[in-house]
């Protein structure tokens, strides 16, 4: 079941720039105010830290994000693209509903995501939990 909310072309352009061009560290997506389309809200600078990224996830509103997650495993540096659906418990129920039912449209448009995180509080998107998921497998 889906909401029929669309994905704006800039979402994909930004994603390609991140994936292939490594121009950004992360991208924050949001719903357009009239709930018809998903748009890019912020492109995180390459030099930004994980905490900067977390600061862009509001306490009471929904977001989606792609983060270029870098970590070390077996002595080597790895990169994985992490997709985060952010829907904190105290977001408005309408927002949560729209977010959950529209998520699939965005997720399917983004090719090359290795890890998916569904976050409702900051502990679920903390660096350790993401690292746990990313470092599992290869």
């Amino acid at each position, binding site marked *: *079941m*889906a*909401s*029929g*909310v*669309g994905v704006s072309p800039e979402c994909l352009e930004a994603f390609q720039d991140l994936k292939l061009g490594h121009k950004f560290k992360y991208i924050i997506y949001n719903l357009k105010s*009239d*709930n*018809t389309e998903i748009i890019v809200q912020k492109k995180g600078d390459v030099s930004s830290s994980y905490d900067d990224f977390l600061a862009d996830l509001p306490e009471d509103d*929904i977001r989606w994000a792609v983060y270029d997650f870098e970590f070390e495993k077996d002595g080597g540096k790895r990169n994985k693209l992490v997709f985060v*659906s952010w*829907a*904190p*418990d105290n*977001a408005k*129920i*309408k*927002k*949560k*509903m*729209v*977010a*959950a*039912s529209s*998520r*699939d449209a965005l*997720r399917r448009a983004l090719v090359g995501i290795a890890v998916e995180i*569904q976050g*409702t*509080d900051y502990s*679920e998107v903390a660096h350790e939990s993401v690292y746990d998921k990313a470092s599992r497998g290869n």
Partner: protein
Amino acid sequence: MVTYGGDEVSALVLDIGTSTTRAGYAGDDTPKAIIPTCYGYKSATPSDGDVQMEDTPATEGESATEKSKPKVSMYIGNNGPSIWREDMEIAEPVSGSIIEDFAPIPSIISHAFRDIMRCDITEHPVLVTEAAWNTPANRERMAEIMFEEFQVPAFYIANTGVLNAFAAGKGSALVIDIGASTASVTPVVDGFVLRKGLAHSALPKLVHAHAQHLLTTQTATRPGIQLLPHQLIANKQAVDPGTPPRFTLREERVAGTTESYRKYYEAKEVDEWIQSVAGVLEQGWNDQLANQRGARHYEFPTGYNYYFGSERYSVGELFYTHSPSLVNSNPNLPKSIPTLISTSLAACDPDLRQVLMGNVVLTGGGSLFPGFLERLSTELSRHFTHVKIHAPGNPTERRYGGWLGGSILASLGTFHQLWISREEWLEHGKAIVGQRCK
């Protein structure tokens, strides 16, 4: 295709449950009409012995059941089964969250939309909710009723499990729904129900039956309690707790009271008792703890009143544990909540289990049972490391979670492209329901 920019779809949302039917406008936060799904009826010729009609087996031959039920008067809505009428029988069209008897459904829908909400159904798209284990034949029948009998311009049928997960902001979740007749555990992954992991049982009915047994059976300290509805009582006098009640029956009504009416009301009295005093211990069963909790006072319509002690907790305990003697005496016992959850998880991919346990959504009116949420979290954290239960604090959100999710979804302008329109129905027929509403 026409795209709607705004949210002015003015769709209607309909959620038919075992106990109540909820109907209202999409975009609202509570249903406008909440009426009992049960209805009263008097048969055309009550003397010809054809009074066993509520026992019509739930067969798939819908047209056959329709013909076998010649009802002259039906009493629907808030003034339906709740009012005493001579020779009125009461029937339940929905059992286990599935519509078993479609004959009265159009009347119930019409009552909710036309009589209560005073709106013209032919002008509004209608979103209907269904249980995850609903049959394809059933949902097609629902579409047929909507398009053919009510002439709706558009229709959609959505799964309550998915709606509840979405309303919690989750694409993937383990939805635990405690209804009036069914407890279900539905794994939802990326917006779709994982059918193999679906588990449900008639657990609330077992709890109810146990409570009824408990109340009507004599104990060392009190006699068995008579479950009479206030409709059959002329007057009563105040008596001390635990002493026999002093009341007079409305004798003129007793003879005209049918068996199904009596049963419906006994169940109602038990329900009220459960909702008022029953609970479940947060940390698991413990005789001492149950006794330490204060006794609660409850008065029945007969005037009989009593302080109920630890027995009120034994009722709720049935949600979580079944004693070996009970299991042995009844091989078809409904599965308890922990069993339902483990059955469901066992059928899911191991990688998914962690995601599901981190996103448990508790919903349904039955989950408002005192101590239920705390007990669930105790039970789950015993077996899993990272458990997070999402349970709306607002009782309306919990009771009408499915309806509310449908209300938001149907109010979206962008959702318009997903409705099954009247034209599509006329062109493709029943097949479109299964294709569109996945």
